[in-house]
């Protein structure tokens, strides 16, 4: 029987396959065709007017230039800071390295629009630190922390999470014996770093450089919140232009340009990834030990720089938590007294429906999207791993589409594809409904979920299934009894990570949110404008603290495992090594 024949004879996989093909075509393929049509044939005839409009718009050209500038500089700055973080936490012997790690890891628990808004509240006009600094430097302008430098600094600090995940993991795989061999030949810590460690890390450094570049290219919230009028990038410009019928084709073309640039860079990335990395040739490698800097001056400089950066990372978190307990009047006047610390802001958020609603909406969307995505992908991945043929191989490639396209393109695609009745959705108009954001969230999480679940499925010992077959278990019983139990913890972890990353989403919600169901990211961004409600600033602090708590709990659930005797419990459910390159424009918010 042919491989296609086998899938056709399994009703279970036939249903799963049909649904997967429909979803892929309807929500991953067709919206992109719709964007291309809207950009080059807005009224049914082929037209390249959008190019002319871009050529004649200084603002659009500037946004393209700014995106390129941000991407290029971010790629450099993130590497400088990120590599430094990895060195002081994983390579050099630095006192309090664990504490430093926690400080640098604060961007794991808050990012995107939340982080940008937090930085603005701390360092921006009327911000806490701005007030302190003006005490020393009266001439310091109110909006000193804005424009390109502010965006670059904020995004640099936010994007080092890639280094902490991938470069740290790669460094830990370097064989200590190769370092010791170099030491025996007289090499010092810096020479070993330059000749043994960095050359080994080159592929992963290249990968995170591309990720940083892409993050800068598709940046939305940081330029919107901190860029001011002088520094707007492509994504915020797309958001603005998409709102007007006359400039919608330009928005589509910009989204396509962003998408093509992203795809080209990810192709380069994939090529690098295929090359493989050799961390050790030893059959039994030993764990890399931290190196002691022999020069006391160098050691002091290293410690001062490490702790200086630690303050830079943790100060916003500490201040956000502190100010979440202060009344708005104290925040605005910058007069902080311990007596002012109350739970009033939290009471207001939890007692008033209007303030609590965005949080509930975000939790609802995130839970539903993460749950549907993981549940669906459990069956899809089982099908993809059980039946390898040209259809499942093509499906697997197509399911990765959201990974290679920026959020703006995905969102605009859904808007233009389903703003009218179409047969593929049974005549349902999706645009303008609360459902469109849910669909976008589910689609956005498919590649990440697919990749991790697939890794969990393929690492399953096939002899377990064979043993169950030999004992008479049916395919569904094997799935339930043998396959799902070991995959389930990974599925829970992926669900939690998906839930986390959607909780403060702004990139998709900015385009697709229903007015009555505005998620937290949109509300936090709106509160940053400041003129709506005097309590908006303190609400943002409370939202940020709540998000940090939820995210922190979820991260703990995923990465911390109690010590048990079973081998499976000794490792985290999803290790940084298995979380391959996150989709840069969405997983790493900035």
């Amino acid at each position, binding site marked *: 029987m042919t491989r296609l024949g086998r899938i056709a004879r399994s009703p279970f996989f036939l249903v799963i396959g049909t649904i997967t093909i429909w979803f892929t075509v309807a929500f991953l393929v067709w919206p992109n065709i719709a964007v291309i049509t809207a950009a080059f044939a807005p009224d049914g005839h082929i037209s390249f007017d959008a190019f002319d409009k871009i050529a004649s718009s200084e603002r659009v050209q500037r946004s393209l230039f700014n995106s390129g500038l941000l991407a290029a500089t971010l790629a450099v700055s993130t590497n400088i800071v990120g590599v430094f973080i990895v060195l002081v936490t994983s390579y050099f012997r630095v006192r309090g390295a664990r504490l430093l790690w926690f400080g640098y890891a604060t961007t794991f628990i808050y990012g995107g629009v939340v982080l940008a808004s937090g930085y603005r509240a701390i360092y921006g006009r009327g911000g806490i630190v701005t007030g302190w600094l003006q005490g020393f430097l009266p001439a310091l302008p109110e909006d000193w922390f804005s424009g390109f430098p502010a965006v670059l600094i904020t995004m640099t600090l936010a994007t080092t999470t890639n280094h902490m995940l991938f470069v740290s993991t790669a460094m830990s795989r370097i064989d200590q014996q190769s370092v010791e061999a170099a030491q025996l030949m007289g090499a010092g810590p810096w020479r070993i770093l330059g000749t043994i460690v960095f050359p080994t890390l080159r592929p992963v450094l290249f990968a995170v450089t591309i990720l940083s570049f892409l993050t800068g290219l598709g940046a939305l919230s940081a330029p919107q919140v901190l860029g001011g009028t002088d520094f707007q990038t492509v994504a915020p410009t797309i958001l603005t232009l998409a709102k007007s019928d006359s400039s919608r084709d330009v928005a589509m073309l910009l989204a396509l340009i962003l998408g093509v640039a992203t795809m080209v860079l990810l192709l380069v990335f994939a090529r690098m990834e295929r090359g493989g990395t050799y961390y050790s040739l030893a059959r039994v490698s030993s764990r890399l030990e931290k190196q002691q800097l022999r020069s006391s001056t160098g050691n002091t400089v290293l410690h001062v720089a490490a702790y200086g950066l630690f303050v830079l990372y943790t100060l916003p978190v500490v201040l956000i938590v502190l100010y979440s307990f202060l009344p708005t009047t104290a925040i605005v006047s910058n007069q902080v007294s311990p007596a002012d610390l109350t739970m009033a802001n939290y009471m207001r958020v939890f007692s008033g429906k209007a303030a609590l609603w965005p949080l509930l909406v975000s939790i609802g969307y995130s839970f539903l999207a993460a749950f549907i995505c993981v549940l669906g992908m459990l069956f899809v991945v089982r099908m993809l791993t059980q039946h390898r043929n040209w259809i499942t191989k093509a499906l697997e490639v197509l399911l990765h589409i959201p990974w290679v396209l920026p959020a703006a393109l995905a969102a605009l695609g859904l808007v233009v594809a389903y703003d009218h009745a179409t047969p593929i959705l049974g005549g349902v108009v999706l645009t303008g409904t609360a459902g469109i954001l849910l669909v976008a969230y589910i689609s956005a999480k498919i590649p990440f979920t697919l990749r991790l679940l697939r890794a969990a499925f393929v690492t399953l*010992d096939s*002899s*377990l299934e*064979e*043993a*169950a*077959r*030999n*004992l*008479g*278990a049916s395919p569904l*019983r094997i799935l339930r*009894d*043998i396959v799902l*139990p*070991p995959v389930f913890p990974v599925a829970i972890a992926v669900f939690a990570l998906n839930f986390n990353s959607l909780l403060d989403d702004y990139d998709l919600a900015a385009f697709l949110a229903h007015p009555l169901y505005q998620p937290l990211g949109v509300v936090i961004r709106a509160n940053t404008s400041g003129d709506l409600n005097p309590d908006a600033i303190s609400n943002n602090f409370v939202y940020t603290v709540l998000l940090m708590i939820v995210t922190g709990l979820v991260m703990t659930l995923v990465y911390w495992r109690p010590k048990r*005797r*079973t*081998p*499976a419990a000794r490792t985290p459910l999803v290790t940084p090594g298995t979380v391959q390159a996150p989709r840069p424009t969405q997983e790493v918010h900035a």
Partner: protein
Amino acid sequence: MSEPTDFAVEFDGVKVTYGDFVAIPDLHLGIREGEFFTFLGPSGCGKTTALRTVAGFVNPARGAVRIKGTDVTRLPSDARGVGMVFQNYALFPSMTVRDNIGYGLRVRRVDRAGRQQRVDDVARRVDLTSAQLDAHVADLSGGQQQRVAIARTMVMQPDILLLDEPLSNLDAKLRVQMRAELKAVQSDFGITTVYVTHDQDEALTMSDRIAVFNQGSIEQVGTPDEVYADPQTEFVCNFVGESSKLSPQVVRNMGLAPTASYVRVERAALAPRTPTAIRVQGRVEDVAYHGMHIRYSVGAVGCTVKVLASPTEHRLQKGDDASIYIDPSDVLQFDDTGRRIQTRVLSHTAVPA
């Protein structure tokens, strides 16, 4: 295709392919009822593929597999009456020992009381205690895990037991101990057993008969003694046991026809054991102490001959001159195709060092 026979397991012209690669070109083999039969061979020789063909995990491109005379080639794994113990045991990690052993019974909807009785019974026969039955499989040692794997298979009362290198995950001492236990279990249950291994010691000590595999084909089938003492091909001679290949000069000087010739390590000696033994002069190249014996590698003309000697009888040093005595009737000779030929003595002449 030939007529069905009364073998417990029979391969009738089985061909197995993986894409363009032919893993087994044409396998004919019969395994008798109650036999402990071993597939022996190096990695990639097709022995595991042959075993998996019996289990129903590999579909032959041609030919038939028969179990007790019934063609099972197209039957699913669980309908063949075979039980399999996997190389890594394939114990279900999310279940306790009891749940692992009782899994197949639960699938067959055996009621709880019946299940418990059969699990307890089989556990007793493989020496698993009631405390171990309630333990998590990850908490057991390698040997205990193997017993669970055997119990899980035997509780289903299969007609044939398939063992896929079940000792390869154990340390050397436990391997030796488990050989005896496995053989005892097989004998206790009286079940036809097909055992796959690349370890000749395991094959020789446990098996009633052995099939030596090479590149998907069987080189020789026989009892351990036949396979060891009377290898029918050069491959079997090299793979089973330890032999020294003699150089054409040495062979010629021994008065034998100059063709591929070997002598088993225990058939060469430092003193004449038979009146017809020929002396081969050489120099000690290497000395390896093994406790019960010393292994000398003696360089003769164009070859190195390995000799075992008692530590109490001979103590030679590296570089010493040594005389080796080989009886020409102990020399194993093979033709150009690697087939065994009768050793022919032409004349007796000692070989100078």
